[in-house]
């Protein structure tokens, strides 16, 4: 299902959000979790970063570096031990305030609700009137090209369609900030590429601030304006790599020498921060 920007000019939501999204500032955040042994595991420490208004920022780092933890702190799902998160210079988002759209690695659709009821869930929980939430959920579904699957049950959707529905659910309350937690890692390569292309169209149509957590370097280069590389645990922003490539970026970006140079830069940064156990076993042989 390919969607073109021109198809959707008439489905702007009734209440448009801020024109270019809102900036996020994270300052000196520390997050730790209790361990079984009674100690504390420090997931993030001295973690600071900026997500400029209207930009797409990718957060990349080795497994277990606290990428998802950082996203949960910014979403207001997790209170840090220390440090602050500011949305547009003010208070951090908190659950239910409609200022954040969140897409997880799994679609997390409620199995007994139709697609449209799943997409309308944020509005239902915000006690929006039934008529208005149906209209807005239908709009969100057509924005992600799922207008035909309104009444389908989640089990009838393919993996890619289910993840689109999850994206529509994140967009339905028209948040100024969209947080994506490895949203494509469960999809096959082709579906992923199509998804990447459509996301870009979506962002060009109505810019919003996006933070994308990923461990795929090529995906980060294709989608992001800036790539923030995290150190291994405890996570801290080590390097920021700007991606100044024109949009929309094609699938065959890997052939572009400029893109290849950026990818190499990110990989080098990642190689520096990788945890000891990931050092190749051949290096110790010679």
């Amino acid at each position, binding site marked *: 299902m390919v969607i073109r920007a021109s198809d959707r000019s008439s489905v702007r939501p009734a209440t448009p959000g801020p024109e270019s999204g809102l900036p996020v500032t994270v300052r000196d955040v520390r997050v730790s979790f209790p361990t079984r042994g009674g100690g504390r595991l420090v997931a993030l420490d001295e973690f600071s970063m900026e997500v400029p208004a209207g930009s797409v920022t990718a957060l990349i780092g080795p497994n277990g570096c606290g990428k998802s933890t950082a996203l949960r702190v910014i979403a207001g799902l997790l209170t840090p031990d220390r440090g602050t998160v500011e949305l547009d210079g003010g208070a951090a988002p908190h659950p239910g305030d409609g200022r954040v759209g969140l897409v997880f690695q*799994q679609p*997390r659709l409620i199995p007994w609700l139709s697609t449209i009821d799943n997409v309308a869930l944020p509005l239902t929980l915000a006690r929006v009137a039934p008529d208005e939430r149906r209209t807005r959920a239908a709009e969100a579904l057509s924005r992600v090209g799922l207008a035909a699957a309104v009444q389908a049950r989640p*089990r009838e959707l393919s993996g890619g369609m289910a993840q689109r529905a999850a994206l529509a659910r994140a967009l339905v309350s028209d948040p100024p900030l969209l947080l994506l937690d490895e949203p494509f890692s469960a999809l096959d390569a082709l579906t992923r590429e199509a998804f990447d292309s459509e996301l870009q169209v979506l962002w060009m149509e109505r810019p919003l601030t996006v933070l994308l957590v990923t461990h795929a370097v090529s995906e980060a280069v294709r989608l992001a304006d800036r790539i923030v590389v995290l150190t291994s645990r405890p996570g801290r922003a080590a390097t920021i790599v700007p991606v100044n490539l024109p949009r929309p970026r094609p699938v065959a970006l890997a052939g572009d020498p400029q893109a290849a140079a950026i990818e190499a830069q990110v990989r080098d940064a990642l190689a520096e921060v990788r945890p000891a156990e990931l050092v190749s076993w051949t290096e110790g042989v010679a």
Partner: protein
Amino acid sequence: MPGRWRRPLASLASLAAFLVAWKVVTVLTGTPDYILPAPEVVVDRGVRAISSGILWPHLTATLAEVVLGFGAGALAAVAVGLALGKSVVVERALSPYIVAAQAIPILALAPLLDIWFGGGLAARVLVCALIVFFPIAIATMVGIRSTDPQLTELLRSLGATRGDLISRLEIPSALPVIFGGLRVGVTLAVVGAVVAEWAGASTGLGVLINIANQGLFDTPLMFVALVWLAAIGLVFHGLVVAAERRLVADR
């Protein structure tokens, strides 16, 4: 044969086979009616019991006990099961009493409840409710605990209240398991009704069995009561299954 008739035909065929087998046994063994009456003798006795009017007070009494006892027991069980499922502290505090109450045979408890609650309908409803309670409470607890934590996190991220979580996620996701408990519970309600009637009552199908047995040696009438008990169990079980189909199947 059109597919939609297959299932009712299978039910009818098995009923017919059962009746034929019953009849064959009575004929081959020559068993007298006061030990094992033939099916047509029971049917004849049932028709007379209805037309003479002796069946109705007993049937309605048992029906009232089953409906009220199952309703009250199921409601209480879902509420308590929800609390058990949501809170480990509540489970630790309450489950010994719930298990102990279940371990004491209801047969031994019924006379006591009859004394405490004045031997009226309330006492018999309580026995029904008690016997129904355990399977439904445990099923609800297990169902609530099996809620997908990823969906819980999703709802929390959307600002769901405690009430939202219970009504929009936990109860609906536990529903298939709760219905398993309800199916067990509804048949136990019939057992509870008869036990309660034996502990002290003047009407009810359990009482009718005692009357037929002790005073009259009217074994066909005992069978009539047994058939009605089975029918009540089947009908209510069928209602629970129908409700389950409406609420759960569409997933």
